[in-house]
């Protein structure tokens, strides 16, 4: 296994920039998830690492080797595709053997490695079948097996679980994580599902519009999103964002909406003063918002829009100043739609963003 480093990688198609100036380093043995919405450039980035499409600029290193101009076959990586890309006219055994044959291993060694990989993945009984005779989950395992059968320097995975049904997806997620731990493999994993990224990855690279937004551990991305995009993309349900005004009155700094003000704690006040203008965005995750049926000091008025019981928790969507805020309640607390409520934000766990730049405001 080896580390993989991207330096100012750019990919353009004519006037369109698919990937713009992306840099990050995946350490040896690290599991990194590339996440973002459709068309954010994550799959393009993966294909650039694989060498399947030529770069427009920048450098990619695998280990200490600059691989910019190397063919995919010379980069010594393995890839798992979203549609598995199993060779339909070959049996499972031959699918697994193909990468080894291409590398001119001896027949004995190929047989030994194929058998061993099949044993590890529990697909020995499928070896003589053709891919179309397998279920989706079995095809997924074979695709994984074809990547595992040789010792590549890194694994690239392009939404490998997204074609599986929900139950199998959760099961394979656990297995993949276990593989990573056992193999100490360098894995770069593309997904649009932030939950997969958060649960499996050591680090996540959040992309949007072809640029890297944030590259950090899932916990840091979750706790300290750098901008409103990351804040709203990571976490389920998403972080609620409310555009508000900053009001400074002597020593006190407050957030103001339509007919109400919420004084900020000293730490938050310092953050708020760092904004370029009076436009601020308040961000809060559902678990940090308290709901009251009567006004208290520092609470914010709102009106219940919908109530969504999920069993464990009940999510309550509340209209606050034209924006929707999602709060959570224990399932036995009664709430009704179209009633007035007051929201208490936990000032130690709330986020403030600059309304102009959308960037997180941090204490300076």
């Amino acid at each position, binding site marked *: 296994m080896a580390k993989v480093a991207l330096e100012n990688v750019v990919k353009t198609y004519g006037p369109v920039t698919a990937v713009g100036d992306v840099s990050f380093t995946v350490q040896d043995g690290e599991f990194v998830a590339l996440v973002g919405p459709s068309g954010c450039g994550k799959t393009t980035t993966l294909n650039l690492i694989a060498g*399947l499409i030529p770069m427009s600029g920048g450098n990619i290193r695998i280990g200490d080797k600059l691989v910019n101009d190397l*063919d995919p*076959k010379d980069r010594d990586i393995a890839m798992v595709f979203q*549609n598995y*890309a199993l060779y339909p006219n070959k049996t499972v055994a031959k699918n697994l053997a193909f990468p080894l044959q291409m590398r001119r291993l001896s027949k004995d060694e190929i047989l030994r490695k194929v058998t061993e990989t099949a044993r590890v993945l529990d697909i020995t009984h499928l070896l003589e079948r053709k891919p179309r005779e397998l279920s989706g989950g079995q095809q997924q395992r074979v695709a994984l097996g*074809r990547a595992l059968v040789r010792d590549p320097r890194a694994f690239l995975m392009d939404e490998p679980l997204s074609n599986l049904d929900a139950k199998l997806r959760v099961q394979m997620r656990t297995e993949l994580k276990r593989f990573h731990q056992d193999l100490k493999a360098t894995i770069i994993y593309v997904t649009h599902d932030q939950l997969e990224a958060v649960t499996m990855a050591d680090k996540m690279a959040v992309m949007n519009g072809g640029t890297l937004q944030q590259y950090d551990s899932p916990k840091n991305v979750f706790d300290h999103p750098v901008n409103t995009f990351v804040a709203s993309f990571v976490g389920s349900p998403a972080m609620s964002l409310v555009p508000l005004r900053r009001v400074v009155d002597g020593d006190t700094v407050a957030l103001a909406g339509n007919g109400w003000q919420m004084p900020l704690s000293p730490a938050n006040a310092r953050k708020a003063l760092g904004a370029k203008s009076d436009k601020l965005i308040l961000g809060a995750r559902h678990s940090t918002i308290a709901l009251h049926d009567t006004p208290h000091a520092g609470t914010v008025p709102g009106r219940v829009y919908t109530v969504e019981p999920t069993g464990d928790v009940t999510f309550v969507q509340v209209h606050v100043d034209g924006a929707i805020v999602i709060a959570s309640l224990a399932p036995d607390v009664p709430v009704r739609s179209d009633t007035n409520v007051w929201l208490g934000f936990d000032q130690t766990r709330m986020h403030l963003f600059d309304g102009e730049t959308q960037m997180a405001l941090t204490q300076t």
Partner: protein
Amino acid sequence: MSGRVDGWRWAGRVFLVLILLFTAVPMVWMLLTSIKSQFAAMQYPPQWWPKEPTLQNYTKLLDPTNPVGNDFLRYMWNSFYVSLATTVLGVAVAVPAAYAFSRFRFPGRTFLFFAVLLRNMFPAVVFLMPLFILMRWLGLVGTHGSLILTYLTFGLPLSIWLLKGFYDNIPIQLEQAARIDGATRFQAFLLIVMPLSVPGILATSIFSFIGAWNEYVYAATFLNRQDQLTLPVGIQRFFAEFATDWPGLMAATFLMSVPVVVLFLVLQRYFVRALTEGAVKS
């Protein structure tokens, strides 16, 4: 409600039976006539079923020592040679062309692709004189080369178009996987894509073979020496020379249709796949 549906279904069946009769009856009559004696074939009222069936027409046509048979076998060989050359050359060009149209984005790709199809907007006869003049310049009139070239210009667009549909349906990830697994671009094409496109190549080959095998107008115009003629033109000659020998003519026609029908029956599975796979996205 269900009565109406049944009514339509019956109407459909009647229609299909009529179509079947329309296409099959001439064939059956051809076959029946070909095993009659000449006398029986000319009888009126006609013998619906041959009273004394005979294979002598076939033995005559397939006997190289018989002058008629000798001519017939030569025509057949000429047709076979021209059709096979057209097919092999056509596939050799169409496969890489279709693959490139399917996989690569290059300047002028759309324009070129439609330019390739442009030929099919005109009936073949429109090009008869221009091509004849062209072939004279090239000094190819009276050679099989002129026919092969002509059939290629007609057959290639369709072949490329059919094959492109086939390649479009082979996921590009298969090649990408192969390249990551250690194959060069060409190996990925040869080892992974080619085996998967065999049905498409077979179907395309049948198309171009049948097209060349059946073609009449160009063969009649470009060829003049009797020993060069292809079957359609040769049989036309039979018609002129042995106008009264209906059974012989029918036997010759039947023998001419045999390779086409056999090819089609053997490969129809691939044929249907080729026509539908390009159309339906999975």
